[in-house]
C-alpha cells in the first residue's frame, strides 16, 4: 500500500537574522554528517533524536550516545548525549560537545613567528520533550557554547522549540531553531542568531525497511533550501543512508552525504553509525557514532 505524503509548510516568520557560525550547530554525529539539517526529522537514532526536542518524548528507554568527527585542517569534534525518560512526565536530555580547533601558527604583523596558538569550543545542551495524546510531541532545547582563544573567550546561548505529530509510519515536525539573543554575549562584535525555521515530513515504507523525509529550512542569509533524506535496510541489522542538502553559502560542500549503520547489536540494542561528506578542496569530514538503549 502506497502512502501518500502530504507536506504542509509552516508559516515562516520574518525576522532579521545574520549568518554567523554557532558552534552548537556544527555537526558531530554520523547522521548529522549524512543528512545535514535533515537529521532533525529523519533520524531515529539516539544521537540524532536529541537534535529535535519534540522527538524526545517518544523515547521510552534510557539512551546514551557518543560521537567523534574528523573535520579538515586538524580540527576534531566530539559529543556525548544522554536521554532519560521521566515516567509520564516526558523525557529529559543532556549533551556535551567539544571541538578542538587545532593549532595555528602565530605571527607578528611583520611575519615573525610567535609560536603555536590553540583554540577550543565546548557546547552544553539541555532538552525536554513530552508526548500528548500519544501523537503530539512538544520539546525545548537550551544550548550554550563557549569559544576559548589564547587571550579571551566568547560565549552565548540559544534555544530550539519544536512540535511533532506522529501517527503510524508517518510523522511531521515544525521547529524553530537557534532562537536567542545576539551572539556572543561578551563581545562588542555580536550579531543576531541565524534562526532557522524548519518544517518537514517523514514516512516509512515496507514495514520500516525504507524511510525517507522531506524537509524545508529557511535561514535568512542562506535563503530556503530543502533537505532530503533516505534510509534503507538491505539487511536486518544494516542500514544505508543518503542525504541531499545543497546550501549555496556552503559552496564547497558536496550536497550528498553518505553513511551506514549497524543496528540492534547485542542485547543492549547497540548501534554504530558512520557518515561521510566531501567539502571539495577543503577536505572531507567523517564521523563515527555509537548509541545504546536500555
Amino acid at each position, binding site marked *: 500500500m502506497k502512502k501518500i505524503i502530504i507536506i504542509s509548510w509552516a508559516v515562516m516568520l520574518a525576522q532579521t537574522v*545574520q*549568518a*554567523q*557560525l554557532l*558552534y552548537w*550547530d*556544527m555537526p558531530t554525529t554520523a547522521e548529522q554528517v549524512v543528512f545535514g539539517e535533515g537529521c532533525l526529522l529523519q533520524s531515529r537514532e539516539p544521537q540524532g533524536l536529541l537534535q529535535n526536542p519534540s522527538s524526545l518524548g517518544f523515547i521510552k528507554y534510557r539512551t546514551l550516545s557518543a560521537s567523534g568527527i574528523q*573535520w*579538515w*585542517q*586538524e*580540527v576534531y569534534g566530539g559529543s556525548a548525549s544522554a536521554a532519560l525518560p521521566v515516567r509520564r512526565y516526558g523525557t529529559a536530555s543532556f549533551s556535551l560537545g567539544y*571541538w578542538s*580547533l*587545532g593549532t*595555528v*601558527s*602565530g*605571527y*607578528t*604583523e*611583520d*611575519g*615573525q*613567528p*610567535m609560536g603555536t*596558538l590553540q*583554540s577550543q569550543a565546548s557546547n552544553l545542551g539541555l532538552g525536554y520533550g513530552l508526548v500528548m495524546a500519544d501523537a503530539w510531541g512538544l520539546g525545548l532545547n537550551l544550548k550554550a557554547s563557549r*569559544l576559548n*582563544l*589564547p*587571550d*579571551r573567550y*566568547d560565549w552565548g546561548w540559544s534555544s530550539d522549540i519544536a512540535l511533532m505529530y506522529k501517527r503510524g509510519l508517518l510523522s511531521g515536525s515544525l521547529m524553530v531553531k537557534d532562537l536567542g539573543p545576539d*551572539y*556572543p554575549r561578551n*563581545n562588542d*562584535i*555580536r*550579531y543576531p542568531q541565524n534562526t532557522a525555521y524548519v518544517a518537514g515530513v517523514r514516512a516509512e515504507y515496507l514495514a520500516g525497511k525504507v524511510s525517507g523525509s522531506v524537509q524545508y529550512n529557511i535561514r535568512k542569509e542562506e535563503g530556503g533550501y530543502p533537505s532530503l533524506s533516505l534510509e534503507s535496510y538491505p539487511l536486518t541489522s544494516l542500514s544505508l543512508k543518503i542525504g541531499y542538502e545543497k546550501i549555496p*553559502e*556552503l*559552496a*564547497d*560542500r558536496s550536497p550528498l552525504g553518505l553513511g551506514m549503520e549497524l543496528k540492534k547489536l547485542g542485547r543492549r540494542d547497540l548501534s554504530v553509525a558512520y557518515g561521510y561528506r566531501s*567539502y571539495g*578542496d*577543503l*577536505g572531507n569530514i567523517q564521523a563515527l557514532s555509537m548509541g545504546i538503549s536500555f
Partner: protein
Amino acid sequence: MKMMIQTTALCLFLLGAGKINAEYKCFYGNLHAHTSYSDGESTPDTAFAYARDVAGVDIQALTEHNNGGSFSGVSYSITPEHYQNLRLIADTITAPGRFVALAGQEVGSIGSSGFGHINVWEAPGLWPYNNSDLLGCYSWILDQGCPAMYCHPDSSWNSNFNDLYYYQDYDRAMDLIEIINSSTLYEDAYLRALERGWHVGASANQDNHRRDWGNRVNSYGNIPLTGIWADTLTKPAVLEALQSRRTTAMEVSPASDRINLLLSVDDRYQGEHFIRQEGTVKIMIQASAGSDFASLYLYTNGIPEDTFKVVQASPMVTWELEKNIGLGTVYYHAKALQSDGDRAWTSPVHIDGVSEKNPVVTWPTPIKNYARIVFTPLPAAVSVKAVIYDLSGKLVKEIIGSQPDQPIGWNGKDAKGRQVLNGVYFIRLEQKSATETRVSLGKTMVSR
C-alpha cells in the same frame, strides 16, 4: 656568504637620461615646485620651459598649494580654474621622449591643527581641503588613483603626518617621501616611515618658489633631484614609475653629475614588493655618475648592515652580494656616497619571506583588524585569489590579489562588510600560471 664585485669602466654618462639597465632608464625630475598660481613666482608655462631648457631636467612637476591658506588676507591657494589651466599647460608642454610636465597640488596644512603637506600629481580635480583630516586626505588620494608624496616630513613641527602613523588601509595611498627638500635632510623620517610599515619610495626635490625650477642650488651647494626609473619618457610611464616607487633620491653637484643608483633583489627593482620562500637572495647595486663613488651601503630593515668601500675610485660601480632571509618581512635599500660628498638613496625592495611548511598564513595571527595573507608563490603566476571560509565551510569572503606575488590584504570583514566573529578561519588560495593551477590551504585565527 657575501660576494663582492667591483666593476670599473669608462663612464659613458649622458647628460639627461642615464641608462644602467636594459629594462628601465633613469629620468631626472623635480617633483615639488610652485609658481604664482599659489605662492611662487612667474607662470606655469615659463616654469616648465625653464626646467626643460635651462635646468635640463626630464620631468618637472608644479605642485601648487591647495589648502585654503592666505597671507595678509590674500589667498595663495590655487583656484579650480588655475588648476585646470595648469593641467592643460602641462599636457601641452609634455613632449614624449623629451620632457614630461606634471600638474600637481600640495595639499594639507602645517598649521597648528594640520598634519603636513602631501603632493599629489595629476589628480583630475582639487582636494576639497579639510586640513585636519589626514585619513580623509588618504582616502581622497586612493579615490583619485594618483601618485602622492609626503613633503618635508619633519617630526619637530606640524608636518609629521601623525608621526607617520601607519594605516594599513591607506598603504597604497602614499608612494614617496622626501628625503631632501631644498636644504633639509629628512633621512630619519624616511627610515621611520619604513619602520612604521609604509611602502614609500625615496625622493629629493627643490620646493622652488623662485625662478629656479629644476636647478635650485641649496645652501650646501647641491641640487636635489629624483631619479625616476621608467621604460620611456612619457607621462603614463612616469606616473606608473612613481606609483611603483621606482625612484632614487639624490643630491648632485655640479648639475651634470647626476647619479644612477639602482637596486635589485633577485632581479626585482627598487619599489617592488614580493613574496618568496626563505633562503638566499641575490642583491645587486649598480651606481654610475659623472664623478667617483667612495662607498655603497646596503640597509637591511633600515640599518646599514653592509658597506662596500670603493677601493679604486670609479664613477661606475657594481656591487653584488647575497643575503639570507628568514620568515617575515625584510626590506633593503641602498645608499651611495660619492667622493665629493654627494649622496643618493634608492627606494626599498620589500620581501615577505615564507616557509614551504606553511604555504598560506596571515600576518599577524591572531588577526585583530587587518592582516596580510602571505603564501608560497607559484613561479610565473599570473593571478592569485584567496577564499576565506569559517569553520563550518561557509564562504566568508573572496579576495583577488592585485599582484600574483604580493600579499593579499584582508580587513577581517565578510563579503557584506561586517566584522567577522572570533574563531578559526580557513583560507583556500588559488594561484594560476599559464600552465598550472595550484591550490593551497591555510588556517588562521581572529581574536579581538
